[in-house]
């Protein structure tokens, strides 16, 4: 089909594979953008359009002390002569070089509206004017001394420099930013004094480069005129390498210095940027909290991170306020002007916490921003990712070339002058004959030839003699020529010495750097903080409040606001939160702080964690959401045990929470271990620290036998006792030290030997010996027994009876240690019956008794659970 079509179509003389066509077009596009559009040269830090603008202005003589010229005029000149692309892109590039919020050291001195940090656009190029700023002009000095190569422009009618000689390391001073194809660059700006100090330090440490691959030039013969320089070998220039390490360089260059001020953080991260060329620098604007006359607080922002648009920032704050992401703002004003600088005032409500609002501003707005450095620049036309050392080395190498070329040029000029002066001196020695010769010549050309043959002069010398003014014949003038000749010879000698000594050249460079530093150096604008900014965690943004978390039997979880009035004992609140929904009931209730973390242990032996504030807050009557939406448990996995952990690491278990101790009471206890127990009587002791970092998909807390389930997890101090009670009313009381400490994923050891058809219904930690054991049976019989009735045994035995059970009482349902008297019990049956009994009314009996009837349970019903309220 294709071939047929090709034959039919005689118009096509070539067929081209789409892949080739695509590749060819793409690589042309990509490389052109990389090499001649988006990336700066490492030596002068300029992209072609910038270089062309500066060069054009230099050619137009629009220096720092000349009049401003219309930008449109400059753009026209740049476009017509060197840059055959859109005028808008040239004018944008020019304006950017004149924006003091983008450039640390502006290269262009602008007149008129050059745009603002609010993102207001600059005026059209027919309105605004420009001239070179002192920094821009400095970059162009030495350009007319053959210091750099020139190449023909796009139409071959003009020439343009491939790089500027610049004594200012502009790449680092102003940074650069560009998106090419398949790569991009982002280099932060720096402080001139610091960069100069680093360069000087590097030079002082000496050049470690081993001078390979260069051709030595004998300048005393090679350069007689300026044009001789072109014949010198191309590889005569020195490179520069330093022995200094990046951290030694960093003792001078602390970090980026942004024109907008602000603060940068984290020496380690900055070091990474400087060592690898890639990394993140955290920047913050400056904001302070201030008390207003009326006692209210306000936050004043006085500067912004680099490249943050102020108008957008304010809009963002307003939006966050509207969306209620930031609370506590009562007013927001931008009071900035050009005389006093940036001033954004954020008035706070009386009840607002200023520090929290400030943190929220850092977290949610660009008041804190990261600068993602990626220091890519062109080295000999190839894009390279560079570290700071390479950039500085390449800059010194560049300066070596420039200084050598400048001196070669000067040497050429001196040699030419020497030559002429020698001619003039011959003329003055033989002045009468010279005059005679000229007078007797028919015309100037004859005179010249006569001079050349008669006095062995060169054509240049003869011409110079012919051009000589008569006043040179005065006696003093002759002396002047002789003095000049001496001076020239001296200069030649010096220049030759300089050119033959790489060290002297470096010294010249160093002195120039010193000079630049003294002339242009300034204070750092961006503050530097050695430490990291510290992740602003959610906690910094959320007030630390007491809150109540409930989890239902069906796995619905919710968080309820702690009523201001009920900042009393938790038991009381637990009751109120217990409004259950159809077919569901509250299983776990506990009070904790929004900054706490909840550890969920599942029947499958895994543990998951969740920050309390991540649990959605609901009204008291709401159902909540299934916990499976918050943690990565499987659909058939059940949460069996819960602990909360405070930010400081203090562990609280649910019972403690329910029995109504205040947080402070328990936080004193240093828990070291978690004791776990399974349905089949396995116990395990594992150090708490194993659970410090819980992955989002959970950690294995215990390896379980088939069909076994992890049900109880309690914190312990290492010297506690453990009591396990089974359904058949067996119990065992042993020392925690009896259980060997095992790793996180271990299986554990036998806690109690179970008979057939028995299973563990409770594992508890004994905290005080005088506490009671509460047991309740299926049919509603219950009692308290003092714990000293439970003798301590070795673990792993069959244990002793905790209660007497028979057909009348049914098996045990509940066994738990009651360490806080004067409470109420709420006994719930499987069918929803409920009874409340004060714990003080419970009988205290021995172990081997059945207790009394606490609840009358119907024949087809059993006690399901007991809550302490």
């Amino acid at each position, binding site marked *: *089909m*294709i071939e047929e*079509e*090709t034959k039919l*179509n005689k*118009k*096509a*003389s*070539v*067929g*081209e*594979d*789409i*892949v080739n*066509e*695509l*590749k*060819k*077009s*793409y*690589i*042309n*596009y*990509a*490389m*052109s*953008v*990389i*090499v*001649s*559009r988006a990336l700066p040269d490492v030596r002068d830090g300029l992209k*072609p359009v910038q270089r062309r603008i500066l060069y054009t202005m230099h050619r137009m003589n629009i220096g720092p002390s000349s009049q401003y010229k219309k930008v449109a005029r400059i753009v026209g000149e740049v476009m017509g002569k060197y840059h*055959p692309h859109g005028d808008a892109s040239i004018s944008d590039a020019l304006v950017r070089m004149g924006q003091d919020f983008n450039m640390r050291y502006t290269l262009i001195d602008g007149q008129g509206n050059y745009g603002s940090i609010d993102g207001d656009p600059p005026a059209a190029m027919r309105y605004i004017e420009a001239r070179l700023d002192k920094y821009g002009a400095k970059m162009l000095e030495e350009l007319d001394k053959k210091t750099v190569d020139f190449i023909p422009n*796009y*139409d*071959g009618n003009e020439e343009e420099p491939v790089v500027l000689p610049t004594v200012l390391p502009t790449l680092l001073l102003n940074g650069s930013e560009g998106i090419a*194809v*398949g*790569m991009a660059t982002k280099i932060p700006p720096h402080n001139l004094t610091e960069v100069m100090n680093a360069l000087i330090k590097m030079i002082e440490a000496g050049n470690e480069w081993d001078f390979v691959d260069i051709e030595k030039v004998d300048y005393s013969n090679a350069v007689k005129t300026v044009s001789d320089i072109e014949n010198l070998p191309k590889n005569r220039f020195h490179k520069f390498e330093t022995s200094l390490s990046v951290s030694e360089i960093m003792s001078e260059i602390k970090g980026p210095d942004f024109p907008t001020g602000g603060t940068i953080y984290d020496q380690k991260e900055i070091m990474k940027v400087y060592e690898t060329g890639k990394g993140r620098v955290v920047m913050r604007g400056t904001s302070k909290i201030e008390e207003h006359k009326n006692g209210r607080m306000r936050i004043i922002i006085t500067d912004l991170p680099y490249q943050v648009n102020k108008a957008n920032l304010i809009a963002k704050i307003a939006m966050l306020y509207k969306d209620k992401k930031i609370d506590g703002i009562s007013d927001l004003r931008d009071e900035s002007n050009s005389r006093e600088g940036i001033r954004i005032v954020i008035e706070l409500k009386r009840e607002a916490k200023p520090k929290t609002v400030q943190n929220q501003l850092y977290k949610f707005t660009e008041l804190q921003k990261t600068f993602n450095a990626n220091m890519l620049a062109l080295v000999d036309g*190839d894009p390279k990712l560079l570290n700071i050392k390479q950039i500085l080395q390449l800059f010194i190498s560049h300066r070596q070339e420039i200084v050598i070329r400048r001196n070669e040029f000067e040497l050429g000029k001196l040699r030419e002058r020497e030559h002429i002066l020698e001619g003039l001196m011959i003329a003055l020695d033989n002045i009468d004959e010279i005059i005679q010769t000229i007078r007797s010549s028919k015309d100037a050309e004859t005179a010249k030839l006569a001079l050349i043959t008669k006095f062995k002069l060169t054509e240049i010398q003869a011409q110079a003699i012919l051009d000589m003014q008569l006043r040179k014949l005065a006696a003093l003038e002759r002396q002047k020529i002789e003095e000049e000749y001496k001076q020239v010879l001296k200069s030649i000698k010096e220049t030759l010495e300089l050119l033959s000594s790489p060290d002297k050249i470096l010294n010249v460079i160093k002195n120039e750097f010193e000079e630049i530093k003294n002339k242009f150096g300034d204070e750092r604008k961006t503050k530097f903080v050695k430490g990291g900014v510290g992740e602003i965690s959610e906690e910094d943004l959320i007030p630390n409040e007491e809150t109540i978390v409930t989890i239902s039997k069906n*796995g619905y979880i919710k968080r309820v606001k702690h009523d201001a009035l009920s900042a009393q004992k938790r038991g009381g609140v637990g009751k109120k939160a217990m409004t259950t929904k159809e077919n569901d009931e509250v299983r776990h209730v506990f009070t904790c702080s929004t900054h706490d973390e909840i550890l969920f242990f599942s029947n499958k032996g895994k543990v998951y964690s969740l920050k309390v504030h991540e649990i959605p807050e609901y009204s008291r009557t709401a159902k909540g*959401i*299934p916990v*499976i*939406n918050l943690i990565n448990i499987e*659909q058939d996995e059940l949460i069996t045990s819960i602990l909360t952990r405070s930010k400081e690491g203090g562990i609280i278990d649910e019972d403690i929470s329910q029995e109504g101790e205040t947080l402070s009471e328990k936080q004193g206890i240093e828990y070291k271990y978690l004791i776990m127990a399974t349905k089949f009587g396995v116990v395990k002791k594992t150090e708490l620290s194993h659970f410090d970092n819980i992955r989002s998909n959970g950690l294995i807390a215990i390896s379980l036998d088939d069909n076994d389930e992890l049900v109880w997890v309690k914190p312990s101090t290492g010297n506690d006792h453990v009591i396990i009670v089974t359904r058949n009313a067996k119990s065992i009381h042993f020392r925690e030290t009896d259980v060997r400490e095992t790793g996180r994923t271990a299986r554990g050891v036998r806690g109690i030997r179970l008979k057939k058809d028995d299973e563990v219904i409770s594992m508890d930690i004994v905290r005080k010996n005088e506490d009671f054991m509460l047991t309740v049976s299926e049919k509603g019989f219950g009692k308290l027994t003092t714990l000293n009735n439970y003798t301590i045994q070795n673990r792993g035995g069959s244990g002793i009876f905790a209660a007497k059970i028979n057909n009348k009482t049914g098996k045990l349902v509940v066994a738990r240690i009651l360490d806080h008297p004067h409470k109420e019990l709420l006994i719930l049956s499987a069918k929803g019956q409920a009874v409340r009994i004060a714990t003080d009314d419970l009988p205290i009996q021995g172990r081997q008794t059945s207790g009394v009837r606490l609840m009358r349970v119907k024949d087809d019903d059993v006690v399901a659970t007991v809550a302490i309220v």
Partner: protein
Amino acid sequence: MTFLVEHPQDAKSILSRVILANRARTAAKAAREAVVRKGALEGGGLPGKLADCSSKDPSISELYIVEGDSAGGPAKQGRDRHIQAVFPLRGKPINAEKYRLDKVLSNEEMANLIKALGCGVGDMFDIKKLRYNTIVLMADADVDGAHINTLMLTMFYRYLKPIIENGYLYIAQPPLYKVTFGANESYWVKDDEQLQKLLTENKNKKPNIQRFKGLGEMNAEQLWETTMNPETRTLKQVVIEDAEEADKMFDILMGSNVPPRKKFIQANSREADLDI
């Protein structure tokens, strides 16, 4: 609702199906509208930008897709209006590799182009309705021209592939050099061979050779002579030699994954023909 909340994994898979189906629907709808919307616009549903030819016979009709700002005007002025239509592109076309069809068609340039072609797109594509059997990409020989060529090739390859498969897609071959002798004598040269020949023929004159950059450098008559005249022009026909390779290359160069692209650029940087 309760079920979805209690079974988030199931909910996720159900929703992803729904989203997928929705995407397919919007793409189909966009494709349909690109065709159906006709009539709503002036001139029999053809986009106003299209300078159509008078012939209605696809087998002899040609469509020149030109880089708008520089060459649209001269192409319209210089063309043979009986068989040659001109469609000027404004700015850079959307990258078809990175977007789904509905998004591509929401780009006005592309929607207009599809309308101009007449053949529809996606499910509605019908090669029989194609209004031109010769479609020529004509872009400047500079950076942006090269980029536009890659973008247009991507569009045709991804969404109008049968046009390429039928051999209907071509790339114009404008001259590479402009050689001037003295004040009045100038030539447009198509390739290096021709350049050498011209230079040896005119040994005694001083040539001024200019690497040709933009179509806009020519006036209408020159553009016709050098690039559009069916009698004298050269067209490059785009063919797919290895579909697998082509797929891979479009993915590397135009897709959203950067590292392979970077690798390609590094490996081939020396072959580039730079526009400085």
